[in-house]
């Protein structure tokens, strides 16, 4: 966004500190706008006044313009499934955070047999990967026109639309695109792609059907020309595809083009290229080799550009060995580095434990917690899991930093009334917290057992250590 200081935003706000937005002061609300956790329209009095007073309305519009993201945001699809891309502010995640994760679209094509079409669409719809408390899912389906037959393309697009996922329509022939849009324009698909050869027809389609459009060119002058032309003609939702070449020098140049586009938009302030970027790892399927080679290389290209600025991708391989690592990489790269990922502290009951079962303790760092939790669940271990609030830090770091300490352990024992639920006084602490054994025993009066360093070894550890030998 153009403004860097809350002061610049503050002057547009009512300055009444009315707290209607949920923040104590207008200044702290302004600071939240800078952090992108709220929008100007989250200030209720400002919105109300804008409705009545055209002068305020103008101010609000100005503020929205000033605080809009560096890279335009584009929405594909409608309703709950719609996916938002772009909206980025920085080149490195530690400078703020990345906002809208790279959207994954998997391809189908209109000469595909019905069963395979259904199978691929279903896999996209049904995909789930459980990770730090979330279910990671896939974003959409790209329908390619391989028949060059408008009627056929229309039919298949209609079928795919029924799966309810956002779509990219892939056809360079404007006639095919037109009939498909007549069928599904109200689903707000992204159309792919306007090129130097067909841009007039695609510009017409984008305007007529009011759908987002991808512009495609290897030549960045041409790409910028097209973006300027489309914008001037009234198209707001633009995606840039600087062409993904899958191999050798071609891939190297693609890498350069993507970085130059994003860097020039953000650091160079070139608004004509400040749009979401499309990358097509699917082009890896043009190389020689077996499916695993192609799938691996597709995942390599995808990973490169998940890290370096792709906002949306078209992919082919739906096998877990590539979907799982790329979807997790996406989650990792787009996690907000400003807030440690954490879970609620307290007591969790694992596998319906009874009074004889062990009591474990871990931290509220999501990664630690879910690893321990899933280890206990998958190991069929019955137990009580205490989750200590370490401010989202892992065991090793919080022991060193003092967030994991005996006083807090005692408080947690008291709060959760765990002593009333079990008929023993044995607490299993993580191996990495071994040095707190004495302090916790002194503070709480419980016996402390030092568990393994890796929660994956709890099962084996219990065999030798539980129930505890009476002293």
């Amino acid at each position, binding site marked *: 966004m153009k403004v860097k200081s809350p002061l610049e935003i503050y002057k547009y706000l009512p300055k009444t500190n009315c707290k209607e937005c949920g923040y104590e002061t207008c200044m702290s609300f302004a600071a939240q706008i800078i952090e992108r956790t709220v929008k100007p329209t989250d200030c209720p009095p400002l919105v109300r006044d804008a409705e009545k007073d055209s002068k305020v309305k103008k101010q609000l519009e100005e503020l929205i313009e000033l605080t809009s993201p560096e890279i335009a945001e584009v929405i594909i699809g409608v309703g709950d499934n719609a996916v938002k891309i772009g909206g980025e502010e920085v080149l490195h995640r530690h400078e703020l955070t990345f906002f809208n994760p790279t959207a994954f679209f998997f391809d189908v094509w209109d000469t595909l047999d019905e069963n395979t079409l259904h199978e691929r669409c279903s896999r996209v719809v049904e995909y789930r990967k459980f990770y730090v408390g979330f279910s990671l899912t896939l974003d959409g389906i790209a329908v390619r026109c391989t028949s060059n037959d408008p009627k056929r393309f229309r039919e298949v697009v209609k079928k795919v639309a029924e799966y309810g996922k956002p779509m990219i329509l892939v056809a360079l022939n404007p006639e095919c695109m037109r009939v498909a849009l007549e069928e599904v324009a109200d689903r707000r698909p992204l159309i792919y792609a306007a090129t130097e050869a067909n841009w007039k027809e695609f510009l017409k389609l984008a305007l007529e059907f009011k759908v987002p459009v991808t512009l495609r060119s290897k030549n960045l002058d041409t790409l910028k020309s097209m973006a300027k032309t489309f914008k001037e003609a009234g198209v707001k939702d633009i995606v840039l595809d600087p062409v993904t070449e899958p191999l050798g*020098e071609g891939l190297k140049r693609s*890498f350069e083009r993507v970085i130059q586009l994003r860097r020039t938009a953000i650091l160079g302030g070139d608004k004509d290229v400040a749009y979401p970027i499309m990358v097509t790892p699917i082009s890896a399927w043009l190389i020689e080799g077996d499916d695993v080679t192609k799938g691996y290389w597709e995942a390599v290209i995808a990973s490169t550009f998940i890290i370096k600025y792709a906002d949306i991708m078209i992919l082919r391989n739906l096998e877990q060995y590539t979907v799982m690592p790329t979807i997790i990489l996406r989650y990792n790269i787009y996690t907000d580095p400003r807030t440690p990922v954490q879970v609620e502290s307290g007591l969790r009951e694992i596998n319906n434990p009874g009074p004889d079962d062990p009591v474990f303790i871990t931290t509220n760092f999501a990664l630690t917690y879910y690893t321990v939790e899933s280890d206990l*669940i998958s190991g069929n271990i019955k137990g009580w899991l205490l989750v200590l609030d370490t401010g989202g830090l892992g065991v090793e770091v919080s022991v060193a930093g003092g967030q994991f300490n005996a006083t807090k352990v005692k408080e947690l024992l008291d709060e959760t009334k765990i002593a009333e639920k079990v008929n023993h006084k044995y607490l299993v602490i993580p191996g990495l917290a071994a040095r707190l054994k004495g302090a916790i025993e002194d503070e709480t009066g419980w016996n402390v057992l030092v568990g393994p360093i890796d929660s994956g070894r709890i099962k084996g550890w219990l065999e030798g250590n539980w129930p505890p030998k009476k002293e």
Partner: protein
Amino acid sequence: MAEKFTIEEFFKLLKKYNVEELEGVRIEGDLEIEFEGGVIDPNLINALIGLSSYMQLIQEFGAFLYHTNMALTYLQRLSQALGIPTPFAAAPSVVVPEVKPLEVPELKIPDKLIEAKFKPYRVEYLGKIEEVTLGATRADGGTREKTVTIGGERSLAFYLFDAENPHMPVIAIDVFDRPPALAKAVREHYEDVLNDPAEWAKKAVKDFGADLVTLHLISTDPLLENKPAREAVKTLEEVLQAVKVPVIVGGSGNKEKDPEVLEKAAEVAEGERIMLASATLDMDWERIANAAKKYGHVVLSWTQMDINNQKTLNRYLLRRAGVPRDSIVMDPTTAALGYGLDYAFTNMERIRISGLRGDEDLNFPISSGTTNAWGAREAWMKDSPIEGDTPWGSRELRGPIWEIITGLTLALAGVDLFMMMHPGAVVVLKEWMNTLYENIKESVKDPDAWITMEV
């Protein structure tokens, strides 16, 4: 598509609004309009002006007008002739877009693209990453056949369009002095050499293309064999005999014993310019640094994902122990994909950017223990322990890619030296690095072909 607007339809519309007749007007054929007598009946004008739904009428005409300039001309002519002050007679282009019932906006398609020149934003850094050479040939007092130099960057990793970076990152393969716990997919490649570190090192270089080997002296671990340092370093001598690439030597990770082990290793490898892995803040780093200085080796400065600690340890090594600037490599800690990779990535990226911006406590090459990727359960577990997860599929294929993507991610953050294990992962990561270093010329002829491919 242009809709036909005929005079008949015009009359129908007039009728709809209770205009019975246009007196004094005679319309011939489709186009010609003539006025009899030259005088317009004021009643007609009043009739039209007085229409309560006048604007609606205008809009209904608008529907036709929008599409056919011909019709517009008719109506303009007609209204002018009738003396009715229709808005479109005066400024048709203003009224037309306001036509409400129409969905289709005015499409102004330009004839050609607006010309534009893309000017890439240039980034230059003042700083430079130190160049560190590992291994020494006979000329330099060692017995290596080749040396490996890392670092020297003046731009972000692989941004060769900003500045030429002299050295592509290199890959070392891990070798252990006793069989370690390994994932099945890794173990099967080393099954025949697990009990012979020298053969293991040979295999890593000859069969799997390692640029260097890292020998981990885990047998020295007091909790395992507790092998004395003096004895353990014999394996180092064997490995130095077996391969001619530069060697990295690691301890067991025991803070008390490692300094002694690495000291002995430094001694027996005098002149070979090995890397001692590693010095950390919570051990006797000075002893390791002194050994490196004394015998001409490189120190790996290892911290736990904390840029400030990294800075502190580097300063200690540089200023307190006096290690030369060309003899420090950093290991800011590698976490696996899905298990803290985001922290590792951002930490390394920040360290690298600081180095490029001129922070002389941080401008050293970076090393990554990429083998850590195998700690992720997705890399080795048979299937998901979580109910409702899409099945994980073949783990033989999951493991290597876990290592590849962990490495690739950190390569983009600035890693210069990878320590890896799976031969397939080594091959793919190298291929990718060679590609971005433009060492691979071959390209796909038609990168558009995927758009219409039928497989």
